[in-house]
């Protein structure tokens, strides 16, 4: 595959994985937690590096999942002991991220791991960092990691589909039925962490939040069906990646940045033109009603 094709595939996988998983967060009104986790997983990555002395995919995923779930756990703990929930997120997020930043300075120069890279990512380098097994070039590592994480997420969402749905919609009723509400919560946080880490190299910690939240928020404006919302969110993620890439090539600007911008563009379009919840249709409906009455 050509260099461009790899980048396009990587971006699309980021859009798809983050879109589907992030939509669940949007529905739970926990978008800010995505912001927190996308930063604190840095600590998980650094931690995994210190344990294994390498930047391998699997330990990184595990480290990130642990720290991501820990982030959610600390936030929950502070929250339930009376700290305001936005303050709780702020405190946990900054402390764990800061710890990651401090620890990263102990990582030698031999390894490509620094704060700027973690924050911004660089999708343009992705095609060169390939996975080779027995001398065979299997394509970029990031593609494999994203594909793997996407499959895991889809597996969990399929297995716990109705549990995820009910715990989001009506946690009290879910608890009444004996559904493990907290388990589902942390499962989702784990999925978010995995998606974040897998996207890290490509778009970095800041822009990954756009990929997690915006497609879900856009799909939310377009449908009243849970399943369709998840699928739509994934598709919007892909669409944003493709559009963003085209734009970046055309104007020679940051690819990841353009992708994130594209998510915002689709959100605005949906916000205005959505047949159900768009402001334009609302105005038209109002106008029709008032002209009918006069």
């Amino acid at each position, binding site marked *: 595959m050509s260099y461009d094709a790899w980048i396009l595939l990587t971006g699309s996988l980021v859009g798809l994985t983050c879109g589907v998983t992030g939509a669940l967060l949007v529905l739970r009104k926990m978008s800010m937690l995505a912001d927190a986790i996308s930063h604190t997983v840095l600590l998980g990555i650094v931690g995994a590096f210190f344990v294994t002395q390498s930047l391998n995919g699997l330990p990184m995923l595990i480290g990130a999942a642990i720290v991501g779930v820990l982030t959610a756990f600390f936030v929950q703990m502070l929250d339930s002991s009376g700290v305001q929930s936005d303050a709780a997120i702020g405190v946990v997020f900054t402390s764990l991220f800061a710890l990651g930043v401090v620890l990263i300075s102990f990582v030698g120069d031999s390894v490509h791991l620094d704060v700027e890279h973690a924050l911004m990512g660089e999708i343009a380098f992705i095609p060169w960092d390939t996975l080779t097994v027995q001398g065979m070039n299997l394509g970029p590592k990031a593609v494999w990691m994203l594909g793997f994480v996407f499959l895991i997420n889809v597996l969990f969402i399929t297995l716990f*589909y109705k549990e995820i749905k009910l715990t989001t919609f009506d946690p009290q009723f879910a608890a009444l039925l004996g559904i493990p509400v907290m388990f589902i919560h942390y499962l989702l946080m784990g999925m978010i962490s995995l998606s974040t880490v897998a996207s890290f190299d490509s778009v970095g910690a800041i822009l990954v939040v756009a990929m997690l939240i915006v497609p879900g928020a856009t799909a939310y404006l377009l449908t009243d069906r849970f399943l369709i919302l998840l699928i739509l969110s994934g598709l919007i993620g892909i669409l944003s990646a493709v559009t963003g890439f085209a734009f970046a090539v055309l104007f020679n600007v940051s690819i990841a940045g353009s992708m994130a911008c594209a998510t915002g563009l689709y959100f605005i379009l949906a916000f205005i033109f959505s047949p159900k919840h768009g402001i334009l249709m609302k105005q038209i409906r109002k106008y029709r009603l008032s002209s009918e009455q006069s």
Partner: protein
Amino acid sequence: MNALSVQNLTVTYDKTPVLQKVGFEIPKGSLTGIIGPNGAGKSTLIKAILQLIPRISGDIQVYGKPYHRQRRLIGYVPQRSEVDWDFPTSALDVVLMGRYGHIGLIKRPGKKEIQIAKEALRKVGMEEYQDRQISQLSGGQQQRVFLARALAQDAQIYFMDEPFVGVDAATEKAIIQLMQEWKEEGKTVLVVHHDLQTVEDYFDHVLLLNKSPVGCGPTQKVFTMENLKQTYGGSLKFLGENSVVLQERV
């Protein structure tokens, strides 16, 4: 047999207990009104029984077995506003959730479950609205959908927290009718209720509550002026019309 037996139940939110050493028993097949002033702990009682809030002490038995082994027998009509109304889900979807406890983890609702859910919607007169997103229903219609969800649960003991608040006469009638049907099927129903005037018409049992039970038993025996005074204390005089009605009856 007792459908519900509560012993030594104590619940606190902060320091002072909201419920202290509450104990009572509800016979199978009864229709019980839970009555008491604002802040008496009625909602707290239901939530504690359903283990939605932690308790300090208390033994709860449902049909002779500990609560956690009887979850499938429990139906619950929550107070409105406790769900995410904007969640992308239809009325039928919500009713289907009543079947989740029967389906078990991981499995999906099949044709049979959908049939049951549709039947439940029909029973509360909401079949036309099955595909509506739930925030696009009126308050009374939403209440009916949650009633249908409880119906779909096919429970043996139902808990309803103020089901008549904000519904019209027709919906109130529909709820009463459903409660009566449940009773005839030998099911047990507990309802938090505020309108003292209708207590004697709706319920064959009452539980008078103010932090601890003032009385619990058949309506004619327990729903007396004296007990009510004890339950409502000084606030009874604010009941105005109602207390006059009560005075005549007692």
